[in-house]
């Protein structure tokens, strides 16, 4: 993770997203909003889950899809959970 870079965002993948991406996290250019980021990554990796079934978190707190992708932040896409 390259949290020091000022022009990139760290993206975390979990569960089926991690399997599809083949990595647990990666550093990507920070641009657009969170919705656009997921849409682009879904196109790249073929994630089965549509955005409507996910939540998104930034720096460990739930965020909104319309929030801009902030450089230096850590973004996590949260698939439907299945703990318990």
């Amino acid at each position, binding site marked *: 993770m390259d949290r020091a870079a000022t022009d990139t965002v760290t993206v975390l993948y979990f569960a089926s997203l991690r399997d599809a991406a083949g990595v647990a996290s990666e550093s990507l250019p920070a641009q657009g909003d969170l919705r656009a980021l997921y849409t682009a990554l879904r196109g790249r990796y073929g994630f089965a889950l549509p955005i409507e079934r996910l939540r998104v978190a930034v720096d460990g707190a739930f965020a909104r899809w319309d929030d801009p992708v902030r450089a230096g932040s850590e973004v996590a896409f949260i698939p*439907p959970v299945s703990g318990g």
Partner: protein
Amino acid sequence: METTTDAAGDHLVQRFRLAEAPFEIAPLRAALLDARAGAYAGFEGWVRDHNDGRGVHGLRYQAYAALAQAEGERILAEALERFAIVNARCVHRVGELAIGELAVWVGVSAAHREAAFAACRFVIDEVKARVPIWKHERYADGAADWLHPDDQPR
């Protein structure tokens, strides 16, 4: 359990915990014993040998640890606000689990049983719905899959 410090610098008890290995229930229960408490309700989730009619050989839980910890603490704080209880705790396993292993434990103490049961039910329901933990099941037929229930997010 350890303590965390909130934004205002207050020391908070850690009520929710992720466990990377099997844990003992007895000391967790003992920590809830209180002379004011007349009732204790507990819940345990165990790894079953089947799910939806399919044979299960084992499973693995993956968590987004930072957010899971924060969300778990929020759920227990909500339980203490909503119900007339004395104390509440929850521990959730992560990593590989075998059939019959303990996956999640919830314990609640209260003056009366009504609140103890209601809060215990609230905590396990909210943990299952909100805490970023994912289950990966290995089936008897050799297949394996992440569980992403349809009714999420809510």
